[in-house]
């Protein structure tokens, strides 16, 4: 493995972990409102997969998408400012944690209704295919979303029209508090793909290298015009569904078992063992990340509030009563 990529993986996973920790603290202090869904435990999925795509590709994600946005290039400051609801946030303070956007990077959200990402991604894919583009779309979704009609409807259309969409399932085993064996008759999400003639595979979502390699092959498949592909990354979230959820439905044993397979620790050990990284690399990365996250919090706290209530509802101001100038 390239040293540069290894450093990137370590940096991004460390950023993901520390950023989310800081977000939790800021939420507890009352600086972040609404719902806040955090990513610790799942870092290897976003980091491993997004680094297998090209910068010109599109990304569509769920409401648990802070890390996807940052790995895709949105600055931690712009993400934190959005969580704070500030004008400098990546959605200007109008979206919040669940609605992060950066059009310049083709990062298209941020969807808070489970299952919406499928059709958005397929729509982008349709447009790319219509224009014979070589760009592709990465579409993230959770295990719970596989029970929405849009999942099956979209897989059907994506396969039918060979749309360049890579579906990436972040199977963290829980739809809020309902464990996958209680919500899905077919708990192997990747097996759904075959019902629509789509290739799919399962990968250990705690292993960033495995996720990366699987995604690289899948990206190649999709970009070559073979139609969609589905990767199921089996992972785990350490925290509850959102800050409002203490996660009491899981046993301490289960949590301890999964924490023993921590994606960041696994990668660190492996990278040190293989000589991809040395201790100094790791310490430097951790130090830089701590500074970046602290700066993100400072930037967010000092940023102005948005003031224009009506901005962006329409492309131009609209008087509902047809006022004539």
């Amino acid at each position, binding site marked *: 493995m390239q040293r540069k990529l290894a450093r990137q993986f370590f940096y991004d996973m460390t950023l993901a972990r520390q950023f989310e920790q800081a977000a939790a603290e800021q939420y507890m202090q009352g600086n972040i409102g609404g719902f806040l869904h955090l990513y610790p435990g799942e870092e290897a999925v976003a980091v491993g997969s997004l680094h297998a795509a090209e910068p010109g590709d599109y990304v569509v994600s769920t409401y648990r998408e802070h890390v996807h946005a940052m790995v895709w290039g949105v600055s931690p400051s712009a993400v934190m400012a959005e969580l704070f609801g500030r004008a400098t946030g990546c959605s200007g303070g109008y979206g919040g944690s669940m609605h992060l956007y950066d059009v310049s990077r083709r990062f298209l*959200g941020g969807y808070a209704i489970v299952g919406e990402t499928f059709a958005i991604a397929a729509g982008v894919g349709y447009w790319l295919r*219509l224009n014979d583009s070589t760009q592709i779309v990465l579409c993230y979704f959770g295990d719970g979303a596989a029970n929405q009609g849009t999942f099956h409807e979209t897989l059907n259309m994506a396969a039918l029209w060979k749309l360049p969409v890579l579906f990436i399932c972040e199977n963290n085993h829980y739809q809020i508090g309902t464990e996958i064996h209680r919500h899905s008759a077919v708990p192997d999400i990747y097996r759904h793909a075959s019902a629509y003639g789509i290739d799919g595979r399962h990968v250990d979502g705690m292993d960033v290298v495995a996720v990366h390699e699987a995604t690289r092959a899948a990206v190649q498949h999709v970009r070559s015009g073979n139609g969609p592909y589905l990767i199921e990354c089996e992972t785990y979230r350490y925290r509850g569904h959102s800050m409002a959820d203490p996660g009491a439905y899981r046993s301490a044993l289960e949590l301890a078992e999964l924490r023993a397979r921590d994606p960041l620790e696994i990668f660190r050990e492996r990278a040190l063992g293989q000589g991809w990284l040395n201790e100094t690399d790791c310490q430097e990365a951790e130090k830089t990340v701590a500074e970046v996250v602290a700066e993100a919090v400072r930037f967010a706290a000092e940023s102005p509030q*948005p003031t224009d209530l009506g901005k962006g509802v329409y492309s131009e101001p609209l008087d509902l009563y047809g006022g004539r100038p």
Partner: protein
Amino acid sequence: MTRQRNDNVGIIGTARPAPELEVWQALNIALDRAMERDSSVFILGEDVGLFGGSYRVTQGLYAKYGEWRVRDTPISENSFVGIGVGAALAGGRPVVEIMTINFALLALDSIINMAAKLRYMSGGQLQVPLVIRMPGGVAKQLGAQHSQRLEHTLVNVPGLRVVVPATPQDSYWQLSQAIVADDPIIVLEHELLYFTKGPFDPDAPPPAMHAAAVRREGRDVTLVAWHRMVSLAMEAAAQLSTRGIEVEVIDLRSLRPIDLPLLRESVSKTRHAIVVEEDCRFGGVGAEIAATLGEVAHPDLASPVRRLAASDVPTPYNAELERASIPGTKNIIQAVEELAGLHTD
């Protein structure tokens, strides 16, 4: 539904401009011209391609533009409307046809939670130049699940615009305007109007997309209507005129926004207004108009704005009951006479 032959249509050709056209042909020409002009315009929907559209609106376009620009979709309303939203985000100008508005209930997440909100939620970064066309209204004994009007739902959504063309000319104008606009726009069509005829000039300059139109001038009472209710109001006006009551008929053309200045101008003259709507009365567009006119035009009004609307029932199958469930010409005449009685002293 019945399909009528029309000489303006070739076997695989698109409708051609003529002095008089039917609504579906005007829509067809609007689509054809928009697609010719702008390669980012494409159509998605059930049976829009090879079959030519359930009401013939997309006839000939599949042969002319191919399957990628006239896409037959599976029966997956929420997802194909969502695909329209996604394609619009990426730079396309999709025109999505939902076969009837009744099926739009399955797509309300894509319409209301996504199309209408994405620009705002992204701080104005995203653009959703999406047109959703769909027919609604009470047709001919289609039963409760195929006879809905959802104006009341759609007009209450920030981020959407809703137009309701009733004539071939307006159908052409408003669909053309909707396609070039940068916001999600709902073009509500009416199932019984597709095969009605009217004057058509594709080169005439259009009024603003939301502008209402005075279809008949009168001094005594203003009737505000849209879609099929306009023609009933016109019939009522013609009959009332023989009895010396002159009714002004306004075709609203747009339900969000509404052309309040024109309504005010009209009631300042007639001092009485009745809204005639095919949708149910409770919490509807008529309520919005009556309340707003009451707020802003009360000095001009000699009586409260009245509403004639559909009965509060799911649409029955039986033809007589179905007819009785929505306003008819007789009801309009009666309502106007009641009002006129108030000021014939």
